């Protein structure tokens, strides 16, 4: 349109508007129209989003080095970045590239990065896509939850991506699929009613969305489960119940407790996957039928009180949901010290041979290593922060319990259990460097003193004991937190960075020779992966209880971490270090770090 013509057009519009408004009762301004500049910028943004290529099955199996498309980057759960641009020689110069305020209480969420776009979940079911280089918001989807949830249902550790879809578990126990280009919802599937909490988050394999359910603290008759949904439609394909059912081995291991009174087997972490074996590995947590199982253990009829499949690694065919093998780490366990976390798949040398293994560390800081194909126990490592297992059978790996720490139902004494029920290790994951074969384990040293609560048959408690008082480890030197570097070839702890504040974040090892981890005192740190020397640190806005990631955009490496608290881990550990303060109010920030650009 020529200038003159447009002036006439504007005059016409103005005069029409004036005519209309003069007819009306008063003068009403016309709504603001976005200017041409914003229209152009927003449509350029959508064009950029439209260009995001789908995530193929091959991408999930072998992500490009700069991508982070699984919870722990790769299906094997190692949480290792092959990027080496940031290394020991230059990490001291690491600085913030951008930050983004997240919804309050976003404390555990691991972001994903694909094609230069960061996808992240915020508490309150706010899902966002951000430009991973600039921090610009590209789209946002807020799911309106039909109900609230307890803390276990509010936090979300993982989201998943496959094809054109982002898969997100919600506060109200649904799985939703969003279009990665627009954030629009494609489907939603309810996974359970009020009794279901989803903490772990999904993963996708063979077009199936696999999600574990928690919330079995409350009586969920028959316990918890994990499910597979069709990624295209959201239809439920199969359910695996984590408490053994009629006809399955192990249904008779509950000391005669009727099936409908059994509970537990919550799933707290996302599954890992081995493509060669075509197996997913997932952990089931403890039972809450403490009294019934303990009676059996104290009465020494141990196999009748194993409580299968609580405290087990379950190897399941993802296409059928059929169990291939299980290994129970802590039969009939009653301290809430479950093996509930990531099952890391790795190749290590053991007894002169290369073994393909599943590695998992439980809350007590004991690491079990199993053959990935058969579930055969190979060996265990003890980081020395526990007193509940006094010995491990060298043939079977069966753990012999310290009877003095089993809840004494006659109430004649308190027992000191190390660690306390919230564990020395928890959901913040280990990281494994597949080249050096070193496993990095974040830990907090603590104990709990309690006596058991007597309750009626079938009644339950979230923890088995009453009078829970947090205690320091006996002979503690005041250093509560540590990051242990364990050589998985010989089980030796190579170094251990001991510090006052609990190490509450997940670890991330990189090919640049670094290990990143955050703690309860707001420090995000980078260590030399071989010596444990501190090479870089920064004090962030809040404590860190989440998962670091690293990615690359346009040839430049970034490290990202969400800092914020809102789960129970920080309040639980606070008693031991009361001088450490973190902000109240749950303000959370996504931090992205970079090296200064070369001039």
């Amino acid at each position: 349109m020529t200038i003159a013509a447009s002036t006439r057009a504007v005059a016409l519009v103005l005069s029409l508007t004036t005519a209309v408004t003069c007819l009306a009762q008063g003068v009403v301004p016309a709504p603001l129209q976005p200017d041409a500049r914003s229209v152009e910028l927003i449509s350029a943004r959508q064009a950029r989003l439209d260009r995001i290529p789908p995530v193929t099955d091959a991408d999930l199996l072998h992500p490009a080095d700069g991508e982070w498309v699984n919870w722990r980057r790769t299906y094997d759960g190692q949480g290792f970045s092959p990027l080496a641009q940031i290394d020991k020689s230059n990490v001291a110069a690491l600085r913030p590239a951008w930050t983004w305020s997240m919804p309050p209480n976003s404390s555990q969420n691991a972001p994903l990065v694909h094609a230069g776009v960061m996808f992240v979940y915020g508490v309150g079911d706010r899902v966002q896509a951000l430009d991973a280089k600039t921090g610009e918001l590209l789209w946002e989807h807020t799911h309106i939850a039909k109900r609230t949830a307890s803390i276990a249902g509010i936090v979300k550790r993982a989201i998943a991506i496959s094809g054109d879809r982002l898969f997100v578990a919600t506060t109200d126990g649904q799985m939703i699929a969003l279009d990665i280009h627009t954030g629009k919802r494609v489907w939603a599937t309810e996974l359970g009613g009020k009794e279901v909490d989803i903490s772990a988050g999904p993963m996708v394999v063979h077009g199936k969305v696999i999600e574990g359910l928690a919330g079995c603290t409350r009586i969920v008759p028959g316990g918890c489960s994990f499910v597979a949904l069709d990624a295209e439609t959201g239809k439920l394909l199969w359910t695996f119940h984590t408490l053994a059912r009629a006809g399955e081995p192990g249904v008779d291991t509950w000391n005669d407790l009727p099936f409908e009174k059994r509970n537990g087997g919550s799933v707290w972490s996302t599954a890992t996957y081995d493509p060669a074996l075509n197996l997913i590995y997932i952990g089931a947590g403890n039972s809450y039928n403490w009294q019934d199982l303990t009676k059996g253990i104290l009465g020494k009829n141990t196999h009748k009180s194993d409580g299968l499949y609580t405290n087990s690694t379950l190897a399941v065919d993802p296409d059928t949901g059929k169990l291939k093998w299980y290994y129970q780490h802590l039969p009939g366990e009653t301290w809430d010290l479950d093996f509930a976390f990531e099952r890391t798949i790795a190749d290590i040398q053991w007894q002169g041979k290369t073994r393909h293994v599943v590695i998992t560390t439980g809350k007590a800081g004991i690491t079990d290593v199993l053959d990935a194909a058969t579930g055969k126990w190979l060996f265990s490592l003890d980081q020395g922060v526990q007193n509940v297992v006094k010995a491990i059978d060298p043939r079977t790996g069966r753990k012999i319990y310290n009877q003095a720490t089993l809840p004494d139902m006659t109430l004649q004494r308190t027992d000191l259990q190390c660690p306390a029920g919230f564990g020395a290790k928890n959901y913040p994951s280990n990281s494994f460097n597949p080249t050096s074969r070193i496993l990095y384990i974040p830990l907090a040293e603590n104990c709990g003193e309690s006596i058991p609560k007597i309750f009626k048959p079938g009644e339950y408690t979230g923890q088995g004991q009453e009078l829970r008082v947090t205690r320091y480890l006996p002979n503690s030197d005041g250093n509560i937190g540590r990051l242990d570097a364990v050589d998985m070839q010989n089980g030796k702890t190579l170094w251990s960075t001991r510090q006052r504040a609990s190490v509450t974040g997940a670890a991330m090892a990189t090919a640049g020779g670094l290990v990143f981890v955050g703690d309860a005192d707001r420090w995000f740190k980078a260590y030399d992966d071989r010596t444990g020397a501190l090479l870089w640190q920064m004090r962030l806005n809040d404590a860190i209880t989440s998962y670091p990631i690293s990615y690359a955009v346009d040839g430049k490496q970034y490290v990202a971490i969400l800092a914020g608290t809102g789960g129970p881990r920080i309040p639980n550990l606070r008693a031991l270090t009361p001088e450490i303060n973190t902000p109240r109010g749950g303000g959370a920030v996504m931090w992205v770090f970079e090296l200064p650009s070369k001039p």
Partner: protein
Amino acid sequence: MTRFALLLLPLCCLGAGALAQTARSPATFTAEQAARGETIYRDQCQGCHGDKLDNGEFGVPLRGAVFAAHWHDKGLDAPFQLMIEQMPPTNPGGLGVDAYADVLAFMLSQNGAKPSQTPLPADPDALAKLAAPN
């Protein structure tokens, strides 16, 4: 005497001494406050502290001997302050000051205290003059 009873003995003695020095009055609350407090508790607190206040998976017991041992020598302003500053972890202080007094009233009722006509004040200075359960 069993070792457990020996454990309790010094706590009782300390409690008696502290009360004598500060001369706090017994806490009072109304049945209506405790009923409102129960509703709030079930909505906001139960997920961590349990439906019976001592059987939660993520929070410390709010009922029974360990609760009494922790607070017996302090005024009620102390737990009130802690709750407002830290609880619930996802929204500290966000429930409104009267709601915290209601929840505290419910907790008192679950720790053996009986309701009366006098409400529990939602004011730290007034609460400081009231004794925690022992």
